[in-house]
Structure formats: C-alpha cells, structure tokens
C-alpha cells in the first residue's frame, strides 16, 4: 500500500528527517490561509509518479497565481487519477540533488540501501551511478556510512547523508515498508540536506499491525489503489473468459493455457490457497460463492472457467456452490430490473457458460450434482481450457 507524498513526509518529520514547511490544500481557497511565505510549490498528491513532467507541480509567487494553479492541478488527471489534496511547500534552492532509497532485495533476502549523487528527475543518471549496500546483519549506522562513502561523499556530507539513511531505515523496519525513497534529497551549498520528495510503500501483509498508519491515511480513506487479495482482477477489456482458481501458481498456469488455446481472459479470481492462517473450508466456499455471483452478473463474461484443486473441501461441496450459483442466476423476469439498460440492450440476458474442472475427493458425487444442472465436470485441465475457449468463440457470434 502506497502513501501519498504528504503522508510520507509526516512520517519523515516525526522521525527527524528534514522536510520543508508545508500545508495540505484540500480546495483552492485554502490557499488564502497559507502560512508559508511565497514563493511556494504546489504539488498534486497522486499515487503515480511522473506528475512533474505533466504539470502536476507548479511554482507560484502570490495568492492569485496560487489559486489559479491549484484549480488547474485539481482538474489535471495524472495517469487517470485526480488529486484529492495538494501539498503547498516552501521553495528550496538545492545545489545538488541526491537519490536515496531502501527496499528489500529478494535474492539476498535482506534490506538494501540505495544511493546516488545524481537524483532528481533525471532517473537514468541515478540508475547508472546507483550504489547498493546490503544490510547483511542487524542494522547499525555503519551500513549507512558505507552507502555514503560508496556514493562518493566526503567530509561532513558523510554524516549528514548517512544520518538521513539511518532514519529512513528506522522508518523502514518500524513500519514494515516495502520501499522508502527520497528523491531528490536536496543538498544546499552549505551542505545542509532536505527531503524534497518522498515515497513510502507499506507491505500489505504487515499493514494490519500498524494501526497508526490507518490514522495517517484516514482522511483520504479508500483513495489508495489497493486491491484486496480476494477480489476479481480485470485483464483484457475485450476478453470473454473469467478464470476462477485456487492458488496463485495454478491461476497463472490456467491463464497461460487459455491464451495458448487462443482464448482471451476478461478477468481472474484467485479464491485463495489453503496456507492462509485464517483459511477454513467455510471461508473458501464463501469466497467461491461471492466470486461466482459477481462474475455471473457481469454480462461481458461469456464463459466462467473454474479450475480448483481441492484439498480440504470435498468436490461435491464445491459442486453444490457452483450449482446453486448457476440456479440463482438463471435469468428471471424480476432480475432484469437490476441490469443496467445499456447492458440490457447490448447483451442478451443469458448467464455465462460454466466450464468446471475439479480434482480432489468425492469427484463422482460432484459430477452427478453438476450433471443435474447440465454442467459437465472435467478432470483434465487441457480439455477444460479447450472447452472454455471454444464456448467463448461460439458465444461471440
């Protein structure tokens, strides 16, 4: 889960990483109450990067210009996203701009400190000169100094930059971050450093143990582009086949097979593996039911391809859920009311076709349960995929 720049900077400030005086602007007229003296920088608070290049960052000299600029930024979509908030920040004259970051390196299975003297917008330069320090054992300040020296710093800059890296590391471990980045870290002619822009990404699995972060983002609740692990993920907008699997590897293998067979997935749903601590057969069934209900209501879905390898839930119980779902969504007169008029015109009111591949215990019972709903059960994955693709092609006409 990503934080917005101003949220990241609140964490920076609390940890003692130097940041400029700034104010959150929720509507242009907030600028009338600005306490920071002009000139001021107005920055669009969006999750995507690149805002600088497309006009999401503007320097202003007075209130009139500021309000005009704020209106423009509030109405500027950056990668499809409109800001809910701007950040008004004092202007800073940096002599140099450095790049600093900490992230987890999966290969060495350790946090790694990253730094370059060439920060700012010119990312290519930063990458070319990027220095890496792996935090092999428990962190201590010397790792940060090692980075500063690899970056080629000398004299007092060694301590001032490594002290920022130390504090970044504290934020990194205290909040279970996937990434903390300062780019640029402004360096003044006198060697003073300042975090001019910041990015923080919190690990999704660890989020729940940091309740103070909820408070930090509370004002903008629901605005982060995070998807729950159990939600339907869209793929191709002109696809026809929805894929339902349990487990990430199986889901990916299934979508690969669909493409290989000439099909086009519209979305997928991974109803979760059995390694979740809160896993229960009841929960798995619940996810499956919910997912099928949603998918069958999307009239762009021609075929639902279900591929489940069930361990703890017997296949006949899975079949029961599929059968009930199909039954519920056989179009009835009154169900038409819930369909949007345009969909109603564009699409027939039929339900998507179901292709079910199930392996596990009680497969025969599952087969007979599904047969009573005119659904055939397959145990061969390749065949199931072939069937789903050909059904999708038939339905296309």
């Amino acid at each position: 889960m990503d934080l917005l720049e101003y949220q990241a900077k609140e964490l920076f400030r609390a940890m003692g990483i130097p940041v400029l005086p700034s104010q959150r602007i929720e509507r242009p007229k907030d600028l009338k109450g600005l306490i920071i003296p002009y000139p001021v920088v107005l920055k669009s608070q969006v999750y995507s990067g690149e805002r600088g290049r497309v006009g999401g960052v503007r320097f202003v000299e007075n209130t009139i210009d500021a309000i005009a600029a704020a209106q423009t930024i509030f109405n500027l979509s950056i990668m499809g996203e409109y800001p809910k908030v701007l950040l008004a920040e004092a202007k800073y004259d940096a002599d140099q701009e450095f790049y600093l970051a900490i992230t987890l390196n999966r290969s060495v299975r350790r946090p790694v400190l990253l730094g370059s003297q060439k920060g700012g917008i010119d990312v290519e330069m930063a990458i070319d000169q990027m220095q890496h320090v792996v935090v092999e054992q428990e962190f201590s300040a010397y790792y940060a100094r090692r980075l500063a020296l690899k970056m080629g710093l000398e004299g007092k800059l060694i301590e001032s930059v490594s002290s920022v890296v130390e504090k970044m590391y504290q934020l990194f471990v205290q909040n279970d971050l996937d990434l903390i980045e300062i780019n640029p870290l402004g360096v003044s002619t006198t060697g003073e450093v300042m975090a001019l822009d910041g990015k923080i990404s919190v690990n999704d699995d660890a989020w729940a143990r940091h309740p103070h972060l909820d408070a930090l983002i509370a004002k903008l609740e629901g605005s982060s582009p995070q998807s729950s692990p159990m939600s339907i993920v869209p793929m191709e907008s002109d696809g026809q086949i929805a894929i339902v699997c349990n487990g990430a590897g199986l889901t990916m293998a299934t979508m690969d097979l669909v493409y290989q067979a000439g099909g086009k997935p519209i979305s997928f749903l991974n109803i979760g593996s059995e390694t979740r601590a809160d896993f229960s057969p009841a929960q798995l069934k619940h996810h499956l039911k919910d997912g099928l209900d949603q998918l069958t209501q999307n009239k762009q879905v021609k075929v639902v391809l279900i591929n489940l390898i069930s361990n703890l839930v017997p296949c006949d119980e899975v079949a029961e859920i599929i059968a009930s779902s199909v039954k519920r969504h056989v179009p009835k007169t009154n169900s038409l009311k819930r369909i949007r008029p345009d969909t109603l015109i564009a699409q027939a009111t039929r339900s998507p076709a179901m292709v079910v591949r199930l392996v596990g215990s009680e497969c025969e019972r599952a087969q007979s349960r599904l047969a009573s709903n005119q659904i055939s059960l397959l145990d061969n994955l390749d065949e199931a995929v072939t069937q789903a693709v050909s059904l999708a092609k038939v339905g296309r006409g």
Partner: protein
Amino acid sequence: MNFTPQNRVLIQGIAEPLATVHALHMKRYGTHVVAGVSPGYGGTKVHEIPVFDLVEMALSAVGEIDTTIIFTHPYAALDAALEAIAAGIRQIVLITEGIPPLDMVKLLRKAEMTETLVVGPNSPGVIVPGQLLLGIHPVEFYTPGSVGLISRSGTLTYEIARELTLAGLGQSMGVCIGGDAIMGSSFPQWLEIMDEDEHTEIIVLVGEIGGDSEEAAAHYIAEAIDKPVVAYVAGQTAPKGRRVGHAGAIIASQISTLGSEIGTAVSKITAFERANIPVANYPSQIPTLVKKALRLPTKHSNV
C-alpha cells in the same frame, strides 16, 4: 537434513483448526507427529498428540524433535520459529501465508547462523511419497518414484504431481519453497538435496514470474547439478504489476524509478534455455519432457 520416515515432528499452532485437520492427515500418512504446541492448550490432546504450552516443554516430555511445522497466525510465526530454533530444532516448515517480509529477514539471519533449514513461508511443505508428509500436500496426487519436484506454488505443485502420477512417473520427493517474496529455502538448496538423493533420477522445477529465483536456479543447474532437470514457468501472460495471489509472483520493480526486466517469464525461460534445460510450455507437457530426458517411451511413441 532428515527426510526419512524416522523424522520426529512437532506441530506449532496445533490448536488452530487448519493445523488440527492436517495433524491427522500427517499421522495417517505415517509421519511421527510426536507433539504439538499451542500456548494455553498445554495438557490437552489433538488426535492423541500431546499438546504443550512451550516448545521446550514438548522437548523435555517427548524427547528429540527433528522438524516443526508452523501453522500459527502470520504475525506469530517469527516468534514460533525463533522458539523452535532456541530449543534446538533445525528443520522448520512455515505453512503460514502472509508473514511480514521483515519478520522473515530476522528469521533468516538467525536460521543462517544456526544452519536451520526453513521451508516456506506460504508453503504446503515437503512430501516423500509413501514415507513422510511434512505439511499439507494432498497425498492422493502423489505416488512413490524417482522424480524430484520443486515448486513455488501449492496447488500448481499438486497439479503437476497429478500429471506425473497419471503418466506413470512417481515422485521421490515434492517440495514447495513458498509463494511469498522472501523465502527460507531456495531452489539451489533443493536442487542440491535432490542431486544427492539416491532415489531421485530427474528433477522437475516449477517456477513462476517475479524475483530471480529461476534465473539463479538455471545458473546453479548449469554449474553444479548432474541429474537431468525439466523446467516450467507459470505466469507468462499474467498482467504486469498486479498481485495474482503470491506476494512473490509479481512483475514490478519495487523501486518506482528503476525499471528492470528481471522477474518476467521471458527472462526465466531464456535463462533455462541458455543452461540447456528443457522448458515445458504447459503442465501436461512436463511428463513428456521427463520421459524424453530419461529416454523412456513417451505417450506419442507409445501410441
């Protein structure tokens, strides 16, 4: 390392509903589940397995323990694993999904120092068909034989085990190193174990997108593995930057500004091909490639 039927096994978090079910499955498969640990449940029993409040209490009551299987809540898993290591246990299977990556970093620093094998997290564990179940693999898909199966994903491992079994190819061992971003044991570790295992004739390595484990494995195979290897990579068509389920199976540079092609299926398949490792295009092609590598008659030549 010990993967014999003599392995004495502990289950941490045994009072969790999921653990209770799998404890029974393991016992039924013949695994020596000698004790369970769940704080507050000391003195009770689960399927006749005695339960203790602390690992050290289990050890002093039942004697030596080789392996612990951890089913606790993800935020309690680090502590459970450290408790096991402190008590002298040197094989750990982390079933639990969603352990915060920095907890894994802490655990692995300790595990490396104590030479502890950590399988997982987010893993169904290890199965030696017909002999030993250290985890939650559904046993019906496996049959004893000579194919060593290494993978990153639970249900996909079962799928491939099933394909092998249906093709008449039994397995010497099946292991899933786990689907999270930071993993305990690695592909090279298991390649080495299976290369040395006398029951294994060929190794099937099932990779997926994300990270560079497959690239590292390809390199290691070329350098150090004598037995034939067949590979497969899932996720060639997975949408970029979206999490399919595994925290680890995602193609997206974590550092916004550092684009990188490592982690894609193309990068992985290329690495295998450069190391002269045959790569299956889809799961059911794996048995064919295995038979070819072992010079066994394949389906086609059979027909």
